[in-house]
């Protein structure tokens, strides 16, 4: 942290200023003049929170994608299909058992098994052939999409949130003042806050696992130099299978999460895949902190874009991607 400040004084100043302005915007009571130029504070705050929670969902999906890519150089274009499969599975399990946590767990485990099968049966045999692996994932995504359409039809599904997570919660941010001077507080769905919290926990656990455990050390070594790791006698195939299973499982888990506060329908797989692509391109390929930064930026850009410039919302995300590619082609958080 202090290292970053020392190396990039100007950037640090800009970041600190931006954060300060943001905090002030969140906590202050907006004057009528500000409301006239930026719209109502409630709209701004909900775009902000929706963006952050959407970023949390994107982080869950994209971290698996970027981990698989970083270690195995495998652009898994079937990742969106794994997400949608996890979501549908979670819906079925949730309807059957009535438990949201069971849905999360089953989706994680089953999709992780699918990931293991993909790695063991297909990708293991074409190691080092980047393009061929990617083409195989394209074929798989078409097959998965059609199988899911066959199984679940074209209807829209939503995973029911559990009783203890439903309903709104009051946040300590005032959105406006009543005429008697009493502040109106922001209310926000509890389930979204729980998801944000869950994503942060997953992110921190992943960071700890990668940086403080032996397996994490192997994974990091594999990302840096796969051949050398294998030459030191590590059973690198086992590490690959584990990472693929974990990445796929996260996608399945994210499917249930996404199905809870968004909806599940055919086509959602491509949408999520494309969002993860942009997240990973912006954040830096193969980097978990990069995925977090990228997911936050893309989530916020999508929400603010759709609130403040509806017809060009996609262009905002796209312009961010182009700007990152033009200035730092390797992504914001990548080392190389």
């Amino acid at each position: 942290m202090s290292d970053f400040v020392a190396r990039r004084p100007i950037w640090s100043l800009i970041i600190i200023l931006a954060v300060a302005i943001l905090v002030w915007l969140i906590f202050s009571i907006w004057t009528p003049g500000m409301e006239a130029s930026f719209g109502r504070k409630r709209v701004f705050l909900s775009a902000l929170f929706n963006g952050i929670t959407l970023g949390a969902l994107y982080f869950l999906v994209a971290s698996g994608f970027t981990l698989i890519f970083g270690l195995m150089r495998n652009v898994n274009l079937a990742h969106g299909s794994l997400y949608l499969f996890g979501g549908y599975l979670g819906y079925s399990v949730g309807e059957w058992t009535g438990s949201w946590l069971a849905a999360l767990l089953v989706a994680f485990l089953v999709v992780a098994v699918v990931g293991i099968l993909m790695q063991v049966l297909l990708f293991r045999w074409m190691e080092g052939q980047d393009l061929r692996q990617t083409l195989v994932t394209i074929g798989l995504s078409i097959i998965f999409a059609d199988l899911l359409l066959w199984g679940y039809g074209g209807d829209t599904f939503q995973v029911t949130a559990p009783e203890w997570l439903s309903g709104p919660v009051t946040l300590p941010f005032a959105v406006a003042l009543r005429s008697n001077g009493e502040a109106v507080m922001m209310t926000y769905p509890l389930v979204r806050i729980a998801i944000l919290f869950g994503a942060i926990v997953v992110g921190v656990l992943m960071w700890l696992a990668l940086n403080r455990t032996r397996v994490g050390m192997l994974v990091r070594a594999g990302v840096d130099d796969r051949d050398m790791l294998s030459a030191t006698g590590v059973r690198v195939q086992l590490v690959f299978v584990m990472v693929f299973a974990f990445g796929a499982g996260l996608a399945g888990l994210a499917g249930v999460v996404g199905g809870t506060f968004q909806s599940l329908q055919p086509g959602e797989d491509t949408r999520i895949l494309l969002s993860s692509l942009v997240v990973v391109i912006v954040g830096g390929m193969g980097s978990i902190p990069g995925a977090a930064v990228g997911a936050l930026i893309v989530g916020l850009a999508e929400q603010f874009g759709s609130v403040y410039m509806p017809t060009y919302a996609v262009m905002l995300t796209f312009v961010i991607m182009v700007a990152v590619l033009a200035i730092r082609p390797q992504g914001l958080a990548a080392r190389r």
Partner: protein
Amino acid sequence: MALAGLDIEQRTRPRESFGEWVGRRGTAFWVTAALLVLMPAIASPFWLVQIIAYALVLGMIALSLMFLAGYGGIVSLVQMTVAGLAGYLVAILGSSAITQISLNWPWWTAVPVAILVATLFGTLSGALSVRTEGIYTIMITLAIASAFYYLTLQNYTIFNGFSGFNGILPPVFLGIDWGQGVPFYYLTLGCATLAYGAVIYVSRAPFGLALQGTRDNPRRMAALGFDVVAHRIAAYTFASLIAACAGVLLVWYQRQISPGTAGVGPVVDMLIIAVVGGLSRPIGPFIGALVYVLLRTFALDVLESVGLDGRRYQLLIGLGFLIIVLFSPDGLIGIFERLRERYRRGRDVRDGAMGGGGAP
């Protein structure tokens, strides 16, 4: 060392003229050419336009992808988007049924401007994506392509949103209505032949050879003094020109254009067409396109006639693609060449055995 190697290469393979190249073609080439030229006499209008002409148009777009992937080692998914943009521009600048947006320019200004702008767009996408290497390209171009798709879907002032444009008619020129079946067929055949010839010519020209060098060993090419990035961007420009021309033909064929034309599905389909046909030769994309169009048109009937659900044709395409990728990485051309090789070897063995037995 490297220079000596190049010298030998040049001495053993002198540059051949176009006449020599034509003379070297085998029977298969002439049979196919004659068949294509005489097609209107044999085929019904449905086959002529809906199958062959459509396959030629899709083949041209896939050809631009094949040129980048086969000779440049760049797998770009943006080619369908370039074609889509050219089609949209023809609709916006020229005339369509959406009179409040279309500018009603005559076709001889609308079409060149459309091709120019689309080529420029392809070049810019290329310039963005060549900054990173290898497999990243596929991700970046897919992201660009989907951004274009969502832009056309959401934007109503220029792209007319979800419904897009309809009523786009091919021009009447030289007293011929190019929208009629036979003239349109010859128009697409002419353009496809030109594109095919151009790709073959460029692949043998110094630029194409240098491009193949950057595919095989970019660092060595850079050390020899070639600007690798510039070669790759120029390859994008050339490929985008072909894709843009095909896009104009595509919008004249469909007579309408909507976001779905360049959606994520068609973008990936182009890659599938090129890979199924084969990325090693320029004829591959056309074979792939023909197979794809036949499959799309008849899969429903075939599936239902054998008692399966006709709606599962997407599954059929996915499985077929997966099998091709797993067992024949160079596509249908690869399968064909392996069969021919086996046949030739079998004949050689037979001939050898016979000759041995008959010798005194």
